[in-house]
């Protein structure tokens, strides 16, 4: 039997880690992910998990230890945020390249500077080309649910890639919400036993991980990573289907909210999607045909499926919680990729970007309503008045 608990997002992910009972966790605390590591350390101290818990001296070491443990055949989890993720950088790429199915909670926080500990998505957006699968979570429940699915997705023999599970720093990580916690046995049955194909500890079959790889074979190994990403989309959907059946949820590549008969939609990830749903309901009550698309899977980017889901709209407003400085129109990464996806898949729709919430700046329903009203105007005129808006920044 499942039960309901009041958990912060950090605690929800730590709870998932307890139930996964990974062989190895190597982590270094960093705000706002710290609580996850603290809760998990408590589970270790209380003997609730069998995990080898490595308290490392930095995130670079955390990810290095994770890669080593994963190569040795262990099921491995970790967690980080912003500058901690940045310090892991070198090994983040290596984890994907060596095909280590590590699962990492990324509690989204602004990547300095000036120094800031609050939420935006500049940290995870930096790792979008690193070869990791990236999942977003609206709230603690989704972070918790994504954790189990991430284990299955990453370890799938057709994938073997690390998976990052994002949640918004403080807004989700430190806010207490109702979370349905599943029965340990059900979780155990869902994630199954990890049977690594190539374990360094399999002494009968000695092997080498991470040798020098030059111009003669490096490129082929990168091509294999592309293949793994292509398989990942199918596997993500298969795993979601099984998860939904077992735990009565509704996961897919993204979540459409009142989108089917909508004329305009906002596309926004993580916690702000929750706020946007409230705005959608209010505007719907006024008779306005508005909807929402909340991306869940950012890597691999489901371009065709997004184009199909948004193809009937008269206007699209993307909300980006980070800036791709110097990119086209200094827009955000979600907008840039989505605009390209729509154009390449033949969807001709006015589309604009709204950068918001940098460094934890509050985003209120009123501001999201403004985005919707401007999107409705775009739909009416067929014109994009401003390609990129820095929402609520003071002039």
């Amino acid at each position: 039997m499942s039960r309901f608990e009041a958990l912060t997002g950090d605690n929800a992910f730590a709870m998932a880690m307890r139930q996964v009972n990974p062989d190895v966790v190597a982590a270094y605390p960093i705000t706002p992910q710290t609580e996850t590591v603290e809760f998990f350390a408590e589970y270790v101290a209380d003997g609730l998990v069998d995990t080898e818990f490595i308290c490392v001296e930095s995130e670079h070491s955390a990810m290095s230890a994770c890669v080593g443990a994963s190569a040795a055949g262990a099921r491995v989890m970790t967690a980080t945020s912003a500058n901690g993720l940045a310090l892991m950088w070198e090994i983040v790429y290596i984890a994907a390249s060596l095909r280590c199915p590590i699962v990492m909670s990324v509690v989204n926080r602004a990547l300095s500077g000036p120094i800031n500990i609050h939420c935006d998505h500049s940290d995870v957006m930096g790792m979008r080309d690193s070869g990791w699968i990236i999942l977003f979570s609206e709230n603690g429940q989704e972070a918790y649910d994504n954790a189990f699915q991430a284990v299955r997705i990453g370890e799938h023999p057709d994938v073997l890639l690390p998976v990052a599970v994002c949640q918004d720093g403080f807004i989700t990580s430190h806010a207490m919400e109702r979370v349905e916690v599943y029965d340990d046995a059900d979780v155990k049955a869902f994630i199954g036993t990890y049977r690594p194909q190539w374990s360094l500890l399999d002494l009968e079959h000695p092997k080498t991980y991470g040798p020098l790889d030059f111009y003669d074979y490096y490129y082929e190994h990168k091509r294999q990573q592309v293949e793994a990403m292509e398989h990942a989309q199918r596997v993500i959907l298969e795993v979601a289907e099984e998860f939904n059946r077992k735990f009565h949820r509704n996961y897919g590549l993204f979540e459409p909210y009142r989108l089917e008969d909508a004329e305009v939609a906002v596309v926004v990830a993580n916690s702000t999607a929750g706020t946007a749903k409230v705005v959608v309901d209010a505007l719907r009550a006024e008779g306005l045909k508005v909807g929402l698309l909340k991306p869940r899977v950012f890597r691999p980017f489901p371009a065709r499926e997004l184009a199909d889901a948004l193809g009937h709209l008269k206007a699209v407003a993307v909300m980006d919680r980070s800036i791709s400085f110097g990119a086209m129109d200094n827009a955000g990464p979600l907008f840039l990729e989505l605009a390209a996806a729509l154009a390449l898949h033949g969807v001709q729709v006015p589309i604009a970007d709204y950068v918001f919430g940098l460094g934890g700046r509050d985003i209120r329903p009123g501001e999201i309503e403004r985005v919707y009203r401007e999107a409705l105007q775009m739909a009416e005129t067929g014109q994009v008045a401003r390609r990129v808006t820095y929402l609520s920044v003071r002039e």
Partner: protein
Amino acid sequence: MAQLKGWKEIPIGGMILEAGSAMEYRTGGWRAFRPVFGEAACIHCMQCWLFCPDSSILVNGENEKMAGFNLDYCKGCGICASVCPVNAKVIREAGEALKRDDPRLCIRMVEEGKFKE
């Protein structure tokens, strides 16, 4: 060189699934200096065997004596010459710094281009 394989035919992630595959990579081609025996007699202390990073010191399996250098893999780093105690003795007795290819040494390092059998 062997036929290069396509991405579907090779292990993922650059993994090497056979043990001892370094044997296939003849690092001797990297060598700029070659270790050769000089006049001072080897005492078969096996220091060179212990320190050679490429396992390139040959040992006679019958009498367990140092038997030369495996030039297919020796990269010419000169570590064997540096650790050889006979070399140390020769230098001390000479009372001066010796060039690394001095014929009085036990192991001398000779520039590849200048080497004559």
